[in-house]
């Protein structure tokens, strides 16, 4: 039943991806879906920047601007950055720890399809009466007052995709705890695996508060609840707390994997072991922990009083310390190294000054008394784009270039990669640096236009020009992907030549079973150790034998589709008589699929020893 070396038609390939439970294919699914949403979010960003290029512009209307602004934030965070992070985790982490797959391959697929259907559902709002328009934070008083179904799409779509994320997080926690190869102790795990581990723990604790908030809001909007109605004893500030108890850790959910990606890249292209590995681990865990203690710094102006404001201010400043440790450790990883400026390394190097700017403005925001000025101004917009673009997006671009050969077996073109880098890097600073000053000069955020005569003209024009540079960079990247797919040359196990971790010891792309024999890990940078001892491959920890694999399944797709249908029904249950029946019907699909999953006894299948040996021979010849 092995699918190795079998020629397939288009239909079969699609069916393969719909049913796959292979972490490497799921990574590709995440990459494609996240990439498409990234382009969509980018398009929305361009609309925003065009509208704000000149004062009193009427490129789009005020109401539509709020929809675009909301969808830009929501899409970029939930539907682009998160899945792209999951793409990297899925592509790399199981191989980095010497495992054949994640702990729960079925759940892995379910996580993807839930995210996917949630995202599609949210975006269908554009065609069904209007997108959400209360900002990605969707503060309760405004979102309850919103007349269209947009907020309902937001509330239901994010519940579905959030479920997928939560499942993904739990899966990686269990995978990293249980599936590590013999000898891979916690303190020998690659930094990206550590980052994934801590991130997954953050997901586990951060997504439930969001879900609670979303359920409250769903009740209020669709089922006559009054959680956020002050007239009936509700309270809108509770939404802000719930949202930010999720929302702040979310920043670290995105940025810790980014730190992990850069840690791998710095070590690889400096040809040096990561400097201060144990303190890097410690800093990652500490950032994860402190990330939960600071949410109210998003709410300094809400009127919590000076005691709460002071405590959250000081707690927030404390995060600068472990982050600083990381920055210096990266610098000293390069110190004394032999640095090769590949495209991923360019992003990594550019990340340091960019992220430091985002970090220090974060500390500035933490000074509560001064934050009364920064809050909800363009200063904050500049700050978080420096963190999220300068940190997360740079990391995702770097990681995509770095691991592209491992995922697809071909190297992205380095020349085009560098063109993308320079366009994106210049555009990024051009767009966002000036926004610090716009904010300080009194420009509030989330404005659909600005009046002339307030000194905002030049800054906004510069910012818009910068955005076009970033867009151009993205177009070059897309061209690069197409050219590479068509013309790229196949590469071997270790195309960067300086790979240190286990993923570079297997063929590119890795075989379905990852490792013919589970490797024995003898230290940090397991592959590097073997290479330095002059060995070609890894030390095996088991004899060659049959490999047990999970069966593919369409059920995750069906379960997610059911929730998608159900959400449609309930969304329209107040407007149309078919609403409730459709809602219930969707739930029946989901529960039915879950029922079949429970009663069908699925033992998986085995790839036989001979097939493995044959495949390995081919892989070595590539």
């Amino acid at each position, binding site marked *: 039943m092995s699918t190795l070396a079998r020629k397939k038609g288009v239909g079969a390939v699609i069916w393969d991806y719909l049913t796959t439970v292979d972490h490497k294919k799921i990574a590709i699914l995440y990459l494609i879906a996240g990439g498409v949403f990234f382009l969509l979010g980018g398009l929305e960003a361009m609309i925003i920047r065009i509208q704000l290029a000149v004062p009193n512009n009427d490129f789009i*209307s*005020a*109401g539509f601007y*709020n929809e675009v602004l909301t969808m830009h934030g929501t899409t970029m965070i939930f539907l682009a950055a998160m899945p792209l992070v999951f793409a990297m985790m899925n592509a790399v982490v199981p191989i980095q720890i010497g495992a054949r797959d994640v702990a729960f391959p079925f759940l892995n697929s379910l996580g993807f399809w839930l995210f996917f259907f949630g995202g599609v559902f949210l975006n269908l709002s554009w065609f069904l009466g209007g997108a959400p328009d*209360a*900002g990605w934070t969707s*503060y309760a*008083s*405004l979102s309850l007052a919103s007349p269209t179904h947009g907020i309902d799409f937001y509330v239901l779509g994010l519940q579905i995709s959030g479920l997928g994320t939560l499942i993904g997080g739990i899966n990686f926690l269990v995978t990293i705890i249980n599936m590590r190869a013999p000898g891979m102790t916690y303190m020998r795990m690659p930094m990206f695996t550590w980052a994934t581990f801590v991130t997954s723990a953050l997901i586990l604790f951060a997504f439930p508060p969001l879900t609670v908030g979303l359920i409250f809001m769903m009740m209020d909007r669709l089922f006559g609840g009054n959680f956020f109605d*002050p007239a009936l004893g509700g*309270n809108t500030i509770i939404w802000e707390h719930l949202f930010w108890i999720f929302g702040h850790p979310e920043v670290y959910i995105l940025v810790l994997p980014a730190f992990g990606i850069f840690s791998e890249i710095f070590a690889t292209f400096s*040809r040096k072991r990561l*400097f*201060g590995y144990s*303190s890097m681990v410690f800093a990652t865990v500490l950032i994860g922990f402190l990330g939960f203690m600071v949410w109210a710094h998003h709410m300094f102006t*809400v*009127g919590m*009083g*000076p005691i709460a*404001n*002071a405590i959250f*201010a*000081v707690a927030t*400043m*404390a995060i*600068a*310390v472990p982050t*600083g440790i990381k*920055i*210096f450790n990266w610098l*000293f990883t390069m*110190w004394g190294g*032999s640095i*090769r400026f590949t495209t991923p390394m360019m992003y990594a190097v550019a990340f*340091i*000054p960019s992220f*430091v*700017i985002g970090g*220090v403005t974060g*500390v*500035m925001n933490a*000074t509560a*008394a001064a*934050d*009364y*000025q920064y*809050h*909800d101004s363009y200063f904050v917009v500049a700050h978080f784009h420096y963190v999220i673009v300068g940190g997360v997006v740079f990391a995702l671009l770097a990681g995509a270039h770095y691991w592209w050969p491992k995922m697809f077996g071909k190297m992205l073109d380095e020349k085009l990669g560098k063109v993308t880098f320079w366009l994106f890097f210049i555009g990024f600073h051009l767009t966002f640096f000036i926004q610090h000053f716009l904010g*300080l*000069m*009194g420009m*509030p*955020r*989330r*404005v*659909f*236009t600005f*009046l002339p005569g*307030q*000194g905002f003209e030049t800054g906004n024009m510069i910012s818009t020009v910068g955005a076009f540079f970033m867009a151009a960079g993205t177009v070059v990247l897309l061209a690069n992907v197409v050219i590479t797919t068509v013309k790229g040359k196949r590469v071997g196990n270790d195309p960067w030549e300086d790979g240190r971790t286990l993923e570079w010891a297997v063929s590119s792309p890795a075989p379905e079973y990852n490792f013919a024999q589970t490797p024995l890990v003898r230290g940090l940078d397991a592959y590097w150790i073997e290479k330095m001892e002059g060995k070609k491959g890894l030390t095996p920890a088991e004899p060659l034998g049959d490999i047990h694999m999970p069966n593919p399944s369409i059920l995750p797709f069906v379960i997610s589709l059911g929730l998608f249908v159900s959400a449609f029904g309930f969304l329209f249950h107040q407007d149309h008589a078919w609403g409730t029946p459709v809602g219930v019907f969707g739930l029946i699909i989901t529960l039915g699929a879950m029922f079949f999953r429970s009663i069908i006894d699925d033992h998986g299948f085995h790839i036989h020893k001979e097939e493995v040996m044959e495949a390995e021979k081919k892989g070595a010849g590539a």
Partner: protein
Amino acid sequence: MKKWLRNWRLVSLVSAMALLLAGCGKPFLSTLQPAGEVADMQYKLMLLSTAIMVIVIAVVTIIFLYVVTRFRRRKGEENKIPKQVEGSHTLEIIWTVIPIILLIILAVPTVLYTFKLADVKPMNKKERDVVVVNVRANLYWWEFEYPDYGIITSQDLVVPTDERVYFNLKASDVKHSFWIPAVGGKMDTNTDNTNQFFLTFDDKRAEEAGRLFYGKCAELCGPSHALMDFKVKALPRAEFDQWVEKMKNAKPVASTDPVVKQGEEIFNKSCIGCHAVTPVDGRTEQARLAPNLGNFADRERIAGILEHNEENLKAWLEDPEKIKPGNKMTGTYPALSDEELEALTKYLMTLSVE
């Protein structure tokens, strides 16, 4: 590093930055040209934090530039394997302890100022002798009530200079945020509770800014969030007192002009259900559905954003939706003919206390 050296560097950095930043923005709007006690405190904190952060950036940049130039792989080094260093306890302690010290330097004034800015005791005393303004934010207009004087105005806040002015802040529909950038940080107007804070308007600097500051709504509140501006007239105490007296004693003047009379009739038929025309309005908040127009003719802007002239007023009355999308006035009154527009405009322009 010797202490005096560091202090000296900090001071020079701060002053260099102050010079640089002062060129930024307009004096009536920019947080970088503070015009009162609160904005001053916040500006000082900005400068201090920026100075510390510039030091951090400088240190990182120097190491960064050195590393990426000095340690790049050169020709002939393709097979060089650098020494695999595990780490250094000394270095790690240094870059843990120094940031902690820098943060403490920043945390002390932060906490101090946070408490200072929250001191609203004088406004909550039984016998208070300070100016208190009740701010009520609405989709997309601001109401300013002076409870101690029994007067109400909207869109243009009038305050005395050189003393602390205290504010009660709340919203009547969705959450907004009250922000006068040049004078001090913002505070949210919630739908759940009343927030309190104070601002001080420095007389000399108010003079330099033309005695008129720009105020903004800083919290996304709907389509016209960007247009929810207000203005602040900062007057010396004596002039402020005069203004209060005029507001208290404002009486509708019976006009002899037939056009104005016609306008008044239209107003009384279509508008008076929501808008009051006298600053002394005894109705409850819930009944005050629209901006008080008691001193409408004295205001700075039409609808908070347009230049204050008859032409703009007519445009606003004709189709408010075109000017402020999503506002609550659109569709609440029958369409007006050109003649009626003219009459209503003439009438509204007589509503003055000056």
